[in-house]
């Protein structure tokens, strides 16, 4: 639930309760005031009438000009009660409609006879007024409530705008972005503080990321000279005489290890460089041409394993990218297909529907997709594979927003890169 809805809900609840309570209360209060008013008038009329009636002689209930529809006087049994005021529905003789009246009944003695004086006043007009007032009030309150809600909503949208901006920027932020996170300014101090805190946090993680990256890069570079010394000395050792077979085997193993170190070093530097965005130059590249060239280059390796390589060019894929990176991307996938293949296996290289696909035979179970594109996630029995290849591929795909997928379609492992 949104924060806005939450606050508005409470406002709304309060307003509805107020409306429900206030309107009846208002109605009753108004009614009481009206009745008190009418009563006062009735009493005033009575006070005016009584002396005038008492001075009359003969039959006061006859054609007395003081009496009318609303004031009646009739003979009654002697009564000593006090005046009574009450409300009653009386059926109107003309319109035959029930009309509510306020009645004042009083007993008075005229010429030794007891008379009952009844003065009535219609409440219909007053009730109509009260109803109008109440309807008006309800309308007004509802409008007020609706207006309040609307204003609150638009105001909240305005007020929360910096918050949503921050959220959007945070979502898009990656720690390997070269530029620091800028969240912009806000007039509202809470958001200002939030932005400042988040910016600091982002800057700290970015700095530690950068320093880690620099460390990896520097370490990789620094390693190159000692590696060169090591490799050089090994080659000199190969030239020494006499050289026994035992020594030669030892030297070969060392040379293989140093070769792997050199490769690992190259791979790490390439990865850092991709992450640093150090391949800005782009040009139009025909993926098909690139792949054909690479297949030719890897021919000897494929022949060694007696692999059957099939190609299927449904179209030529033209991309605008860095040629080195596209070569690394396609090269790594092709090399993997050769390296992790079985002797006498098959490779199918395909370009269709904007995607470059490599299928190859290999181990007879799917690779662990969760760790497939991670650093050093080895999954084949080939102990010499360096485990950086697919991560490099993934990073290049990320850079150019290509989509790479892996699937195992028995017995083929299928890697597909959607480049368009």
């Amino acid at each position: 639930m949104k924060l806005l809805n939450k606050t508005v809900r409470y406002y709304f609840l309060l307003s509805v309760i107020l409306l429900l309570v206030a309107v009846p209360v208002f109605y009753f209060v108004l009614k009481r005031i009206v009745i008190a008013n009418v009563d006062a008038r009735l009493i005033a009329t009575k006070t005016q009438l009584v002396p005038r009636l008492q001075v009359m002689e003969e039959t006061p209930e006859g054609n007395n000009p003081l009496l009318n529809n609303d004031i009646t006087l009739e003979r009654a049994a002697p009564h000593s009660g006090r005046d009574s005021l009450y409300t009653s529905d009386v059926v109107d003789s003309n319109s035959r409609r029930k009309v509510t009246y306020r009645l004042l009944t009083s007993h008075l003695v005229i010429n030794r006879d007891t008379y009952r004086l009844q003065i009535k006043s219609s409440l219909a007009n007053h009730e109509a007024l009260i109803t109008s007032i109440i309807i008006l009030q309800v309308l007004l309150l509802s409008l007020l409530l609706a207006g309040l809600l609307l204003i609150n909503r638009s105001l909240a949208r305005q007020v929360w705008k910096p918050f949503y901006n921050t959220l959007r920027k945070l979502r898009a932020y990656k720690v390997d972005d070269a530029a620091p996170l800028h969240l912009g300014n806000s007039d509202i101090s809470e958001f200002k503080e939030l932005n400042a805190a988040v910016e600091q946090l982002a800057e700290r993680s970015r700095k530690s990321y950068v320093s880690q990256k620099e460390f990896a890069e520097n370490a990789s570079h620094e390693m190159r000279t000692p590696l060169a010394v090591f490799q050089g000395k090994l080659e000199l050792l190969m030239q020494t005489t006499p050289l026994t077979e035992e020594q030669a085997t030892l030297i070969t193993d060392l040379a293989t290890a140093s070769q792997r170190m050199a490769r690992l070093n190259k791979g790490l530097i390439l990865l850092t460089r991709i992450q640093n965005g150090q391949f800005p130059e782009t040009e139009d590249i025909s993926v098909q041409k690139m792949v054909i060239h690479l297949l030719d280059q890897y021919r000897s390796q494929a022949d060694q394993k007696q692999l059957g390589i099939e190609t299927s060019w449904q179209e030529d894929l033209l991309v605008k990218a860095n040629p080195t990176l596209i070569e690394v991307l396609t090269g790594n996938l092709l090399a993997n297909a050769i390296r992790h293949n079985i002797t006498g296996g098959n490779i199918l290289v395909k370009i269709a529907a904007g995607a470059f696909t490599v299928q190859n035979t290999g181990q007879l179970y799917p690779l662990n997709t969760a760790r497939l594109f991670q650093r050093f996630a080895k999954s084949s029995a080939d102990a010499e594979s360096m485990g950086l290849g697919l991560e490099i591929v993934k990073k290049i795909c990320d850079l150019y927003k290509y989509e790479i997928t892996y699937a195992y379609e028995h017995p083929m492992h299928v890697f597909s890169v959607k480049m368009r």
Partner: protein
Amino acid sequence: MKILIIEDEQALSKSIATYLAAENYTCEIAPDCKTAMNRIETFEYDCILLDISLPDGNGLQVLKALKDDHKTDGVIIISARDSIDDRIHGLQLGADDYLTKPFHLSELGARIAAVIRRRRFAGNTALEADGLRLDTQARSVRINGQMVDITRKEYDLLLYLLANKNRVVSKHAIAEHLSGDGDGLFDNYDFIYAHMKNLKKKLSQAGWKDHIKAVYGMGYKMEVP
């Protein structure tokens, strides 16, 4: 032939000097820019090996000085940096080649030989070994005047061995050289046996005494007097 090695890492420069001595190159070592400048002003070299990061400056200034003086020494940059920018920058300044550390000494030997061929003999030179004549311009191989039909890979292999003759060339270096696989995608060196077998067969069928010896699965050595 005289070679100047401008490199601050002594262990490396000594290795290079020792390796190249077998090919009758005379090597001099300059561990910093100042020494290097003095040397290039006074002497002429067939090839200069130049490290870029030196203790007292950038190696590229030595290269600039050379070009400003219109010297014709061949220059191969040997650097730990391998970005395309570094490469292009070095080559634009007039370096003949660019080799990234770590490298195989045999690869360096082959590159030096190529630079010297280009510089000294305008590329028009042939390598000879006991009746075998490899013409780098025509990319052809003749044995006692008879053309031998060999594939591109076999030619590259033969040239590589000739440039490093009388020394053991490791199978790792050969594999890297042949596959042009600088990124090290393969750990399999078996494929060079097939090429080597075919090459040796073709050469001996053409009447050449087999001078290429396998050294205990470690590498190969072409032994010619």
